[in-house]
């Protein structure tokens, strides 16, 4: 099964590159909910998360030509862009205003009334695979990666926060990503990897 072969985002990106605003609107409708959720998870429910979303879609509009499908799906491209912009803003803040990272169990079950938003994300199967892969990580690897991914912490900062030797943290981050990659790689797209 190659999820990405069915990816309608690729056709939308080609149209965005041809300056078709309707295609960007379609990309927005497919992904804005997920991207805003990610930005809010990192930045908290602030206006900043919405600013990040605006930057990301302006970036997609301007830089559609720099999208390289061999480096991942359109959804991943948008997620990486959202995450890196959010982390940049987070790092610019004082540490005191950082929202605490929450692990999966601590999150409430899906907020009521948002099923339609989830439904708009065609990549539900992909997300299920991702959640399973993350869920299968050993707890300490998952924790280290959550601190890096959502809080933008460095190896050193993770070591300090979790009272763990630096070398152990580096190993956890590496092994955790390696496990995720091995688990998800069959579904990565592209000529050079994937089935």
């Amino acid at each position, binding site marked *: 099964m190659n999820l990405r072969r069915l990816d309608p985002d690729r056709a939308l990106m080609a149209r965005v590159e041809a*300056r078709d605003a309707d295609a960007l609107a379609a990309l927005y409708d497919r992904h804005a909910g997920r991207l805003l959720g990610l930005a*809010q998870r990192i930045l908290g429910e602030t206006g900043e998360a919405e600013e990040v*979303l*605006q930057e990301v879609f302006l970036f997609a509009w*301007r830089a559609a030509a*720099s999208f390289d499908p061999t480096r991942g799906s359109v959804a991943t491209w948008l997620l990486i862009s959202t995450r890196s912009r959010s982390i940049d803003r987070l790092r610019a803040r004082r540490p005191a205003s950082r929202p605490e990272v929450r692990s999966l169990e601590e999150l409430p079950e899906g907020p009521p009334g948002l099923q339609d*938003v989830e439904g708009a994300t065609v990549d539900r199967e992909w997300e299920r695979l991702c959640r399973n892969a993350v869920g299968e990580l050993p707890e300490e690897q998952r924790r280290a990666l959550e601190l890096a991914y959502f809080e933008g912490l460095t190896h050193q900062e993770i070591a300090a926060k979790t009272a763990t030797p630096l070398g152990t943290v580096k190993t956890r*981050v590496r092994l955790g*990503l390696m496990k995720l990659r091995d688990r998800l790689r069959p579904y*990565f797209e592209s000529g050079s990897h994937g089935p």
Partner: protein
Amino acid sequence: MAHSERHEELVAAVALGMPLGAERAEIEQHLRDGCPLCEELLVDFRQAASAFAAETRAVAPPAALRERILGSLPPARVPARRGDFAAWRVLAAAAVLLLFAVGLDDARLRRQREDLRSQSADLAGRLASTQIELAQRELRARVLESEDVQMLILGGHGPQPDAQGRVFWSPRAKRGVLVAANLAPLPTDRQYQLWVFLAGKPVDAGVFDADPAGKALFESKNFPEANAQNFAVTVEPRGGVPAPTGPIVLVGAPSQG
């Protein structure tokens, strides 16, 4: 240096966007020396890390936000023409390669860049496929912050309505590359000059010549640090001027609506 677990740790850090300090030079050098394993890991790790996004809940954005975002898009100045995109994609690869190869003191890379430059005499659609591959390979190795690259389309203006251009720039790398086509030949005492608009004011980004076919691939050596809002190209006395005096021949749409 041979591939090691330490390199994998550094690649993991890069994929997660951790600031690396001195270790950054080490992993960049390792990638530059050519480590297909790390190149592939970098791409894979970035995708793998994105799995954590699935832990978050989608949030319905306010309807007003959709209007604001879609309403803020810079209008397209250049009508899309079928068939141009493949050529532009090649130019984009070359431009982005130049963008990130700037300043690297590496003989092999300098040679490759010179090769790319020599091709700029006949740019659009004519870069050999090996060079597209080279550009893509170099991109994987080098463009650790490719999501930072921005692009703006420039349209012909004033005396040169058929001119076309695109500017690729990276705020983080403070680099910019202009690719242009259909530029008119100029008298020998004239040159094209690129301007970056910051807070509404044009700032000199360097002068360049077009080739006899009207094409140009220009890498700005003094690209302003602050976020660019717009770009324009004017015709100026050879060597350039501190503030624009000649006609605007290429201009982009304002970035903020």
